[in-house]
């Protein structure tokens, strides 16, 4: 069987329209407790067969928010009768007719040049009910940056931080004491996201389990969105969050590592894993987004030397695109073995040190605060050694992998070494020596010619 045969067949495996439609109905209804569908890792229980009739569709009642360009809309919600308070927002429009239309539970009135929407406040009990019980979560997560990433790519540029909550009941009560009204998802997305090339970037929200509290003051849970009825309360929400959310130790370290990204770097390094050991030189120019590295050592089952150049101004390491990088591998006698052009964010790990110092920082940041499988940071300690800050901690994930990290930062939060153990076994170490960070008169040789040269060799290698 050829690789492309396998992939071709897989590509043709798609959900049928019938299946898709039925599932969308089920997933739009209220969920039904399904003991038989509990997650199982043991592989001992036999999954039930599909039975559509088991899941009687329960029509979800959605109240449409009225609104139209150039028109005016008065929306009267009927789902909560016990809340008398209203707010008004206005926008201008050219509509010149007045009409009254009643559709279902929504009444629209279109007037002249100025339109207005009367917004009904939701009861505080509705807002309180959005919050999960305290025992259901341990941390609040803040997320900002790209909301999704192309398949198969690593995601950089995303910021995740974890917070401990101080006085959760106080937080809930303060938030619920604000007058809230429902708003549309479109309004929230318009305010909270923006486009950057092909990516949709989120300005950030705090997540308490499935409740999202946007830093700008919106709330979202499930398909419902809320905003303060009064403009002044947007900033009050932000103040409440600041008062009750405290950055945890791991996220504080992640902040330091992130801020320690150098403007430039000139250093010697040593790198080792259980399978490879190498040492060499790094020259990094953050302004031009380029880096040159050399390395010699035991790599990929043999003694090798590598030369790597990240294309000047070629790419953006804050996004999935990564920076195009050319890598040349030679044997100990200097004979050419192979050349390759790749993007780090594609996850290539063919030759070490085919990583970038910048990405090393980002990977560690990810390990601490993102991590797949809800990784937690535990046993966090801090000490000082030769004027540097040494942080040690363990990471635990739900997949029960145990990582042990020792990270050393200089006084300006530049990472100068890290050592990682996984499940008790040595996994990786990286150390800078003779390092110079952020030199004022830093200059870097022009390696663009080298990039082109290696890229050409890579093309030849590909066509062999």
């Amino acid at each position, binding site marked *: 069987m050829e690789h492309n045969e396998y992939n071709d067949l897989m590509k043709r495996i798609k959900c049928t329209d019938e299946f898709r439609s039925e599932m969308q109905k089920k997933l739009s209804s209220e969920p039904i407790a399904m003991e038989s569908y509990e997650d199982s890792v043991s592989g001992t229980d036999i999954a039930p067969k599909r039975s559509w009739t088991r899941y009687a569709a329960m029509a979800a009642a959605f109240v449409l928010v009225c609104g139209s360009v150039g028109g005016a809309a008065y929306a009267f919600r009927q789902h909560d009768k016990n809340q008398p308070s209203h707010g008004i927002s206005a926008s201008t429009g050219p509509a010149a007719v007045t009409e009254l239309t009643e559709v279902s539970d929504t009444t629209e009135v279109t007037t002249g040049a100025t339109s207005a929407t009367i917004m009904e406040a939701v009861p505080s009990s509705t807002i309180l009910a959005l919050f999960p019980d305290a025992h259901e979560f341990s941390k609040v997560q803040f997320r900002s940056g790209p909301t999704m990433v192309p398949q198969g790519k690593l995601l950089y540029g995303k910021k995740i931080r974890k917070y401990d909550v101080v006085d959760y009941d106080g937080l809930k009560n303060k938030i619920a004491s604000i007058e809230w009204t429902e708003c549309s998802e479109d309004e929230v997305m318009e305010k909270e996201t923006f486009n950057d090339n092909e990516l949709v970037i989120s300005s950030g929200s705090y997540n308490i389990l499935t409740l999202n509290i946007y830093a700008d003051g919106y709330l979202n849970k499930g398909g419902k969105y809320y905003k303060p009825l009064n403009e002044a309360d947007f900033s009050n929400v932000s103040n409440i969050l600041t008062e009750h959310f405290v950055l945890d130790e791991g996220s504080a370290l992640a902040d330091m590592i992130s801020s320690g990204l150098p403007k430039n770097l000139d250093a010697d390094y040593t790198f080792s894993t259980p399978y490879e050991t190498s040492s060499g030189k790094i020259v990094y120019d953050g302004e031009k987004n380029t880096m040159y590295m050399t390395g010699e050592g035991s790599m990929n089952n043999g003694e090798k030397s590598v030369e790597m150049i990240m294309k000047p101004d070629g790419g953006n390491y804050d996004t999935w695109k990564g920076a195009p990088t050319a890598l040349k591998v030679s044997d100990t006698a200097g004979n050419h073995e192979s050349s390759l052009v790749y993007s780090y964010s594609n996850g*290539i790990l063919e030759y070490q040190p085919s990583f970038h110092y910048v990405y090393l920082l980002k990977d560690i940041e990810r390990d601490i605060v993102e991590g797949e499988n809800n990784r937690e940071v535990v046993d966090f300690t801090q000490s000082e050694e030769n004027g540097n800050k040494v942080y040690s901690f363990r990471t635990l994930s739900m997949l029960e992998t145990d990582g042990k990290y020792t990270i050393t930062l200089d006084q300006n939060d530049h990472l100068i070494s890290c050592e990682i153990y996984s499940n008790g076994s040595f996994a990786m170490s990286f150390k800078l020596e003779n390092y110079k960070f952020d030199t004022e008169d830093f200059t870097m040789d022009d390696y663009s010619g080298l990039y082109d040269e290696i890229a050409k060799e890579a093309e030849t290698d590909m066509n062999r």
Partner: protein
Amino acid sequence: MNNSALYAFNKYCDTVLRTAFAMTGSYPEAEDITQEVFLTLHAKPQNFESEEHMKAWLLRAAINRCKNYRISAHVRRNQPLDDELSDKLSCEFSPRDNEIREMIHKLPEKYASVIFLYYFEEYTVKEIAGLLGKSENTVSSLLQRGRKKLKMILIKEGYEYGAQRV
């Protein structure tokens, strides 16, 4: 981040279906498994950190269910793919497709899952290790043995480590 099951289904239903198909070789079973995965998510919402996290959870859930199917004595097999799907899918499947499906079906799930994740979903060994809770060495070993078992030419020179050329 929209964590709803409906959003997840609309975005990843084909991915989950393919994962299940890659492990069972049966379209009806893959559909059953897909249904279970998303209904479970609907009943027990998860707090996904990212799209990647959501996708990884769905893949993991699908793979776990496939293991269950594989130990079931009642699962349907050996039905030609074109017969299974003739009433549902608009595309046609050749006898060769059925041969491939048979190979998938005969492959132990431990190989089928890593081969699908590596070669079709283009996850790295490291990512698969995290997703399946195995060491990177184990995943690499499974890939190698899976390749031998299938006797298939899955990769061309230059793609051995999953790199995508720029």
